[in-house]
């Protein structure tokens, strides 16, 4: 475990890289991992955001932001070929079903709608491609001071082809909402999701990537957290061939709070990438990140990059990020990189931790010594590993659904 604790007045750049390839590595982390010299986070944050795809050069895979992504499996989302396929009649369809509790509105709007781009502007070529190519955006609004008792559900079932999407979730001041964005089906998809959390509002946003095995999905999820507002983001990725989710958090006023939870299960050949940036540019805000993943099978690959930047103005910041990976078989690979950059010493706390390990043989022995067969013991351990995180979500219906999904993964894959 690595803790980077700031010292008063110091500017610290913390960067840890953990590479786990195949067998052998019991635990990786600082001391066993490699420390690398990297492009500092603020340079990445400073990449000039743009809505225009032409403002970004075509990435070739050696750039810091793309170095773990198998570019040839992106379905051309990064080099214009997906967009031209769509333009030449290869555009796919999505079956979208909405469940809107009373008071919640959903509109489809054009790209000139003023509400678009307020939470964040695309920061890479795929996100800009999505913005340049989508036809209509979905805007879901929860009116001010409306406290929902039922979740807003957005079910997206992709029916093949290429498609670009834009979704805005606008939670007005002092409203409280749970929004579940559920992805199923297959196709090549790039999207921008914007989360506007108004002053004093509370949003739990759950994004489930339950794709079929061959789907490609790249999404930038930008959140703007208002004064004294709180965001809980839960990203759950099970399916797809290549999934790359990029949650970003900025704060619009002091007192904002962001909890970012993630859970992923990579099977043979799957590339599941989660990279997040929390940009603390406002005083007295808090962030807490916990991502947990399990991997199994040949060439299962998980990437987790957690960037936290505490700018000079962000006095009183309190942040911690934590990534844990459980490697269940040989042949799987994890890249786990927490980054913390601190430009002010006047903060409450800042730290990060990353650990990647295999099944603990002693745990398995203990369970087996109580008569529990090996396969069931392994499932018990993995279930426990995820249950700790799922219990944090705080919405029973979603927790139950996720544990069922985990159960199904375990039945199918962990024996």
């Amino acid at each position, binding site marked *: 475990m690595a803790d980077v604790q700031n010292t008063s007045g110091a500017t610290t750049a913390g960067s840890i890289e953990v590479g786990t390839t195949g067998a052998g590595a019991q635990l990786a982390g600082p001391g066993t991992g490699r420390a690398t010299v990297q492009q500092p986070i603020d340079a990445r944050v400073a990449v000039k955001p743009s809505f225009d795809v032409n403002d970004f050069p075509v990435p070739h895979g050696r750039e810091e932001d793309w170095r773990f992504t198998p570019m040839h499996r992106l379905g051309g989302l990064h080099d214009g070929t997906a967009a031209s396929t769509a333009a030449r009649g290869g555009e796919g369809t999505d079956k979208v079903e909405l469940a809107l509790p009373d008071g919640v509105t959903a509109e489809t709007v054009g790209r000139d709608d003023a509400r678009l781009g307020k939470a964040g502007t695309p920061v890479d070529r795929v996100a800009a491609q999505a913005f340049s190519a989508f036809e209509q955006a979905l805007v879901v609004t929860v009116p001010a001071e409306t406290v929902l008792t039922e979740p807003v559900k957005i079910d997206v079932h992709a029916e093949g082809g290429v498609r670009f999407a834009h979704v805005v979730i606008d939670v007005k001041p002092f409203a409280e909402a749970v929004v579940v964005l559920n992805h199923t089906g297959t196709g090549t998809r790039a999207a921008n999701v914007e989360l506007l959390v108004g002053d004093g509002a509370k949003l739990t946003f759950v994004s489930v990537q339950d794709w079929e095995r061959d789907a490609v999905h790249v999404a930038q999820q930008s959140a703007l957290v208002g004064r004294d507002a709180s965001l809980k983001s839960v990203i759950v990725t099970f399916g797809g061939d290549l999934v790359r989710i990029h949650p970003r958090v900025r704060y619009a006023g002091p007192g904002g709070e962001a909890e970012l939870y993630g859970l992923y299960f990579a099977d043979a050949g799957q590339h599941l990438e989660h990279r997040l940036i929390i940009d603390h540019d406002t005083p007295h805000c808090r962030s807490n990140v916990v991502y947990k993943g399990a991997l199994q099978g040949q060439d299962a690959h998980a990437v987790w990059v957690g960037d936290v930047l505490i700018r000079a103005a962000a006095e009183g910041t309190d942040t911690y990020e934590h990534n844990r990976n459980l490697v269940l078989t040989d042949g799987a690979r994890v890249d786990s990189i927490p980054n913390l950059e601190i430009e002010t010493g006047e903060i409450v706390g800042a730290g990060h931790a990353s650990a990647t390990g295999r099944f*603990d*043989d*002693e*745990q398995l*022995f*203990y*369970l*087996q*010594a*109580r*008569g*529990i*067969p*090996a396969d*069931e*013991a392994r499932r*018990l*351990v993995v*279930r*426990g*590993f*995820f*249950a*700790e995180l799922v219990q944090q979500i705080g919405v029973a219906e979603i927790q139950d659904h996720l544990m069922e999904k985990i159960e199904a993964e375990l039945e199918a894959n962990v024996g």
Partner: protein
Amino acid sequence: MATLEIRDLHVSVDAEGGPREILRGVDLTVKQGETHAIMGPNGSGKSTLAYSLAGHPKYTVTSGSVLLDGENVLEMTVDERARAGVFLAMQYPVEVPGVSVSNFLRTAATAVRGEAPKLRTWVKEVKEAMAALQMDPAFAERNVNEGFSGGEKKRHEILQLELLKPKIAILDETDSGLDVDALRIVSEGINRVRSTGEVGTLLVTHYTRILRYIQPDYVHVFAGGRIVESGGAELADKLENEGYEAYVKGGASE
């Protein structure tokens, strides 16, 4: 009547520079209803005996046999041994994050009994067993061994012993790290199980302290990877007074 027969058991571990033999010909027969204390100095191999019987992968049996009612225990996997009726209470029980005690106990009982215990009687059974060990009911909702004190871990081991009702119970240094109160509570739990007459107990210990609570039928002195002397409860008194020096210096150990 269940009988565990250990014959000329030799066990090695992988060490730097190749395998190192720890057990050098152990012979012992434990019958249902009997209590055998295995006593010996540190490093004599008594814990290795306990873990080898349970099938810990770290230990390699190089020769000898272990039979439970004529069945070859050494050919069984760890979980098969447990289901056949071998129970090991560990000196250092392992944490299993995210798995609650109640879920763990029920999963284990289901595995050992061959069917899920009926919910109503099960809840009562667990409650009573926990109360007898003076365990707070809230304990059931905690994760297995996570953040448990030394005494809580040992009570949890004996709780499992009471619920799983093995034929052969191997208790590895169950007394170590316990204060007097905890030692009494844990010993009473062991005695409850013993009093059924249905379990053969192998009590592995360094100290004679626990034998004030648990009266053994046989005491064996373990040194240099084998039993070097066997006797009745009076042998424990001799060890209490004279220590292990005679056995260590006598060349029975390395």
